[in-house]
Each structure stands twice: as C-alpha cells, then as structure tokens.
C-alpha cells in the first residue's frame, strides 16, 4: 500500500488503512513514547492515545511536510501532555543507579548501541530526560520547549546542559562512550 493510499483510506475511516499506518509507524513511535514514559505500559498508553489523535485529526494533515514527522509531533505532544497530567516532572533517579542497567546482548551491534543509549536516557530524572528528548532528539528549540512545558527558556537551557552532562557520565560509566580526549576518535570510528 502506498502512503497516499493509506492516507486516503484513513480519511475514509477504513480499518485496513488505519491498521497499515499503525503497523508502519507504531514501532518507531513506541520507542519515542518509551523515552518519555515511566515504563512500557505507560508508553503503550501514550502510543494508543497518540494514534487515536492521529486518526481523528488526519484530515488536518496538509501534505506539506513528511507524514512521519507529523505523526511524530502528535505523539510527542501526547507524551508531554500525559507527563504533565501525571505530574511526573518532579521524580528523580539517583545517578548511581546507572550502573545497574541490564543491557541484553543482541546480535546486531547498532541495535545494541541504540538500546543501550535509550536505556541510559531513561535513567535520567524525568525533567532532564524530557528536555533532552525534546531538544537533542526531537529537534525543538528551547523557546518551544519552554512553551510546551510551561517553564522559562533559561530553565530549559540549564536543564538540557545538566541532562547532557549526566547522560555523558552514564555512557562513560557504562563504557558506551569514551572519555573526552578519546571521544572524537571513538565517534569517527563508530561511523
């Protein structure tokens, strides 16, 4: 099914087209939700809510940008609203817990790294994690983040700096990232 056919089907509320769209994007979007959520169940709830919004608002998609980007924005906003609703920004996790992450060995190295990095991001306190997710991964500006989270722009910047530092420490401790001097070489090698 082409993306256009899926879109047309979804506009007609056809279950087959909706299922196809869901099958195509849900794995990626669940990973997005998982980075924001407290646990997998919460992530699935966010995904469900997000996809319902996608299908309800699909008529507002104007075919100007990428369809995936449009879905992703809706999913991210759903995650943020969900976090706000549950007031989980105040939760914090001790950085020392980082060493207790169990990373399952998988056969494909890039997947291993991806999973390890996601797991490390999830160790961050929820406030740091949210800003890091929005700024570094989703590409929102600090101004946009401030509006989304009802915080000051400067707060977003400072939260991000601390989050990045903390993540870096975790990655080094887990031997996923090397120390600064060796970092450039490592990054070049990994590519």
């Amino acid at each position, binding site marked *: 099914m082409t993306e256009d056919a899926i879109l047309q089907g979804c506009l007609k509320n056809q279950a*087959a087209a909706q299922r196809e769209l*869901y099958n195509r994007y849900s794995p990626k979007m669940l990973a997005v939700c998982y980075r924001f959520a407290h646990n*997998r169940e919460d992530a*699935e709830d966010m*995904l469900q809510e997000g*996809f319902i919004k996608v299908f309800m608002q699909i008529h507002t998609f104007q075919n100007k940008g990428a369809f995936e980007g449009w879905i992703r924005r809706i999913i991210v906003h759903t995650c943020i609203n969900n976090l706000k609703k549950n007031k989980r920004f105040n939760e914090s996790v001790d950085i020392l817990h980082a060493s207790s992450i169990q990373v399952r060995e998988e056969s494909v190295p890039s997947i291993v*790294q991806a999973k390890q990095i996601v797991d490390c991001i999830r160790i961050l306190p929820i406030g740091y994690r949210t800003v890091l997710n929005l700024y570094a991964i989703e*590409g929102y500006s600090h101004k946009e983040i401030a509006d989304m989270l009802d915080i000051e722009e400067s707060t977003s910047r400072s939260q991000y700096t601390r989050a990045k530092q903390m993540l870096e420490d975790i990655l080094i401790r887990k031997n996923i990232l090397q120390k600064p001097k060796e970092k*450039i070489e490592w*990054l070049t090698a990994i590519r």
Partner: protein
Amino acid sequence: MTMMERKFYNDEFEELIRQKTDQYKMYPSDKVWKGIYNSLHTKRRRFIAGMSVLIIGFLMIAGKELLMPAKHVASAKKAVVETLPKTNPVDATETFQAFKKENLIQTSSPLTDDRQNINQFITVDMLPDQQENKIPAPSADYISLPMDAITSETPKHVIGNNSLEKLPLEINSAISEPLNKFSTISVTDLRKEGTANYNESDKKQINWLQEYAPQHLTPVKKHKFNLQLYVSPTVNYRKLTGVDYSHIKSTIQNVPIALIHFGNVNDFVDHTPAVGYEAGGSMLYRLTRNLTLKAGLQFNYSRYIIRAFSSNPELATITLNSYYGYLADSITGYTNVRNFSGKSRENLQNKYYQLSVPIGLEMRVIGNGKLQLNVAGTIQPTYLLNRNSYLLTTDYLNYTKEPSLFRKWNVNGGLEAFLSYQMGGLRWQIGPQFRYQLLSTYTNKYPIKENLMEYGIKIGISKIIR
C-alpha cells in the same frame, strides 16, 4: 580540548544520540491496536449493542407469549365469575328491554350449528366494568359469539319462563371487543313462553335467527402462524482450502512472495473442534398440511481451537490474491504467534459471533397431530459481528489478526431433522442439525478459504399464535 573541538564534540554527541535513538524500535502489544480500533469504530459497537437489545427484547416478548397464558383473558374470566352475584337484575332487564326496542342488539350468533339450540336459551355473561357502570351495550348491528369464548366455567344467566324481566344485563358501551369475547347470548323458545312480552320486531328477530344464523356463523379460524424458540449446543469445526503450490514446485514461483510451504493447507495446521451454541426465534406459517414456511432471527456463537506457539514479535506477511494476474499486494504486520515452533505452546481460540436471518421450509415426513417427524432446511444470510480472529499467514509460518480480510456478510445453509410432540398448547421438538457456511470466512483477497461447520442438537418449542 580546544573550543572548536568542544563544539564539534557537542554537535557530534547530539547527532549520535539522535541517530541511535532513531534506530531503536519497539513493538507494541495487541491491546494497543485493539484500544485504538475500539475507539475509532464505535458505530459497530453501537450496532452490536442495538442488535443485542433487539434480540433480547424479541426473545423476552416471544417467551412471555409462548410460555405464559394470556393473563388478561384469564383475569377477565375470573372477574366475571366473582362479580356476577352482585348484579342488579332489575336494572339489567330495563336496559335490555330498551335495547331490544331500538333493535340495537341482535342475537345473531348461536352457540352451535344445531338450530334447535338457538331457540333454547338466552344467556348473558358480563364483564366487571359492565356491573359497575351500568351503561348500555355498544350499538353494534349484532354481537358475534366466537366459539372459543364458550367455556364450561363461564356462568350463564338463563332466561325463560317469563323471566326475561329479570334478565341481568348491563353493558359497558366502551367495550365492544371484550364483549364479543365474553358475552354469550342464547335464545329461549320465546314463542312458547312469555310471548306476550315481545313485540313483532322481536319475533322477526327470532325468525331471522332461525333462518339465517347458521349461515352466518363465524367459521372456526385456522391458526396458521406459530411462534418458535430454540437453542442448540453445537460442535464447531472448519474446512480449509487453499492454493496448493506443489505443482509449481520446480518452476519459478512469484506468488506468494514469501516462503512457500508446498501441499494442502490442512496438513500444516493443527486445529480442533470446540463447543458453541445457537439460539433464535422463528415465525412459522403453515402453507399446507405438511409444509411450513419459516423465517426468524438467529444468533450463533462458533469457535474452534488452533494449536500454535508463542514467539518474539516477528513479521507476518499475508500475500493477497492478485487482480487480473498482476497487481499483487501484501499486508505485513507483527505477530507473536507461530504456527510451527516457538517459545511455548499456545492454544488460540477463534471465536465468531454471527447474526442471521434463517428463511426456509419445514416438512412433515410422518406422524399425526401429536407426534411427528419433520425435516427442515434453511438459507441464512449472516452478518459477522466480530472480525478479530486469527488467520494463517500465506507462508503458513505465523498466525496474525487482520480484520480487513474478514467477510462481513456471508450465507449459511442449515439442515435438520426433528421429532416434535404436542403437549398442552405447546409443541416440543428435538433433533440433530447441521449448518455449513457457504462462502469463505475471508474475502476473496485472502488466498486461503475457510468454511465453518456446525453440528448440533436443536431443542425447540413452538406455540400457535391466535
């Protein structure tokens, strides 16, 4: 570390994080899609709820009519018996006389076709309302007396030996219909006794009765409609037919695109029958002495069990039938159910909820009015209420759910033979039945065809609708 190095590192770090997190994928559980689907397609749920209410309502009304005697008839009869002694004979007589004079009542309905009986008695029964209101009878041309209204326990007031003056008759003007049922009027031999009390018009009336009443008797109604309720425990199974690719084993295969298992699909599945049920109601219309037309509403719950294995989420591909030999398409999803080997054994239940309208014929083979042997056949246009059953991927490797490949409307055929026995006002029946789904459960796009089968013992009860 220089400033430039730092900036480069920062950008690279963010880029790395973005790249790696984008690579990461997770597969949601089935309940997420179920939740989405249920939220988006509420119409279907409303339809199911509406139909359920309709069916339950229908069954309740039918059950009440079938199993309980008509309350109003029984209570009315009882009330007549209780209130009769309170009758004021004088008032009634006056009223009756007044009606007689104005020719408003004609005693045109005799009790039997025996002419002599017509002249024997006038008996009048009254309803409770008639007692209290003391209002004259409706100005009908005549009062008809259906045969079934005459019962042994119905009390009668006999008029004779100049007793017409004491006739207790008070009739409510607003009750023409009940009056027809419960009032019984007979005629005494007025010419022999008390003729002085009647005028010429009365005599004409009596003569008219003698001449014409038998010809005007309301014929005994043949009740052709029956209401039937039935339930049947069933054993459900299915027949699978698919494309057998064994004949193209050594040639180039392009359909299905995925891995092909050669041979009959039934050799690759492990499925066992399971118990379901059928319930419904029908209206029966007697066409001839031996032939009855039937139509109704029926609910079927069918299921069977598939033996499969659980696994980690993996791709499930269904290759669809091509149109005009080209334009092949496929549906890909994720599933954690394997057909052959996996983490652990898992028994899947494929359940089908069906609503159908059976239309068919019943034929009496042998038997009398009491005990009969009948056979029946029906065609059942059927609507499938749920579409969340598992189906086999076209490579036979996995089971997955794909509601879009299920056929909403189908046709079933039903055959049955049963013994029926008349007991009181009810006819009970029991016998074996077989139901076969004529079209595949799936749409034509899906290469494998599934036809459901049900074997059951049907227990039914029916009653004449009067």
